[in-house]
């Protein structure tokens, strides 16, 4: 028996099968949390936004358009929640992408979890950490509309057409923002020697 698609599961949720929402949650909680935590400035906010996103999916499953993609709809809900939260806090301009401090014990850096390789060499690890910090700073400096597009494209792997649906703007606008974002990242990263 083939795996039900996300859309199948959502239709089941609409029909009252809450178990299906559990499956959707298990499929999407990691990508959603990753995206949201780069859009808001506090881990607590990221948790709350993810939670609220799934709650809205549960409550508003009737609003899902037949033929649409579940992931697009989910990101749209999450992004709107991020924007609402930022608007309330009026701290949109101070979003820090990613963590500026070492990860907690329950989430060791990838390098430390991996077996001994060239990446675990202290010099290499330092370089990797420096690269991450530089990218993090550059992302934080991006205007919000460009950062949204870049995160959805580069780290979540959405197609330009899907991002246009999430943001409810023309695809040409998405590409224009993406181009500007890459250009800005280039300008930020070049002085650091990271290419």
């Amino acid at each position, binding site marked *: 028996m083939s795996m039900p698609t996300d859309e199948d599961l959502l239709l089941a949720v609409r029909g009252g099968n*809450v*178990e299906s*929402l*559990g*499956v959707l*949650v*298990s499929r999407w*909680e*990691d990508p*959603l*949390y*990753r995206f949201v*935590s*780069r859009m808001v400035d506090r*881990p*607590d906010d990221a*948790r*709350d936004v*993810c*939670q*609220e996103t*799934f*709650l809205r999916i*549960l409550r508003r499953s009737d609003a899902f358009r037949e033929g649409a993609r579940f992931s697009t709809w989910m990101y749209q809900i999450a992004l709107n929640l991020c924007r609402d939260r930022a608007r309330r806090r009026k701290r949109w301009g101070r979003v820090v*992408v*990613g*963590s500026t401090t070492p*990860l*907690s014990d*329950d*989430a060791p*850096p*990838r390098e430390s979890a991996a077996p001994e390789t060239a990446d675990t060499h202290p010099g290499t690890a330092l370089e*990797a950490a420096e*690269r*991450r*910090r*530089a*990218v*993090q700073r550059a*992302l934080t400096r991006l205007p919000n509309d460009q950062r949204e597009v*870049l995160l959805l*494209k*580069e*780290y979540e792997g959405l*197609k*330009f057409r899907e991002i246009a649906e999430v943001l409810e703007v023309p695809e*040409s606008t998405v*590409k*224009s923002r*993406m*181009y500007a974002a*890459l250009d800005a*990242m*280039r300008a930020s*990263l070049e002085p650091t020697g*990271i*290419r």
Partner: protein
Amino acid sequence: MSCETFRESILGRLYGENSATADDALTVHLSSCSACRDEIDALARVREALRDGEPQVARAPRLLVLHDRPAFRPALLAASILGAALVAGAAAGGGYAWVRGRTAPSGPAPSAPALAAAASPAAAPADRVPAPAATQEAVDRPMTRAEVDAAIARFERRIDSARAADMQYVLTQLEASEARSGQRIGRTNQALRNVALASNPGIGAQ
């Protein structure tokens, strides 16, 4: 055509989303435009840097949809109605007995065993056995105020017990959520909502 018009195609090539027509046109343009070739190379390097330096994110907390207990529970509703009827009956009977006790001491009144049986269904079957002569007298005697109070107290204890069971259910769910997520539920803003932090979606299937 100016280089500006090829921006979308350059992005399309970087991410593999160009149509065949757009990609062919870009290829033709690139064959004669070193600036755009350099542009593609530079943007590809930015992409590489973004991949290599992807900001880390702590592990996602687990999310769990806890099932609502059904708002309408016929058995509980029936038990509540029955209980309310018993209390009302006991109170009315007690009041009647009290009034008759002041005016006509030998009048009919609700019996203590009957009321006890109503308040304690588990004991009821035994009370349906024909009463021996010794208890027949008790059946006929009016219920005292103390007996009415005792019956009401027993009924209240049953209600409290049901409430405690409900609370235990909620606590169990919250504790399970906390154990699996490593997060104190009370630290989130959504503490007592239907969706709680936890790790196993199956835990809600009750």
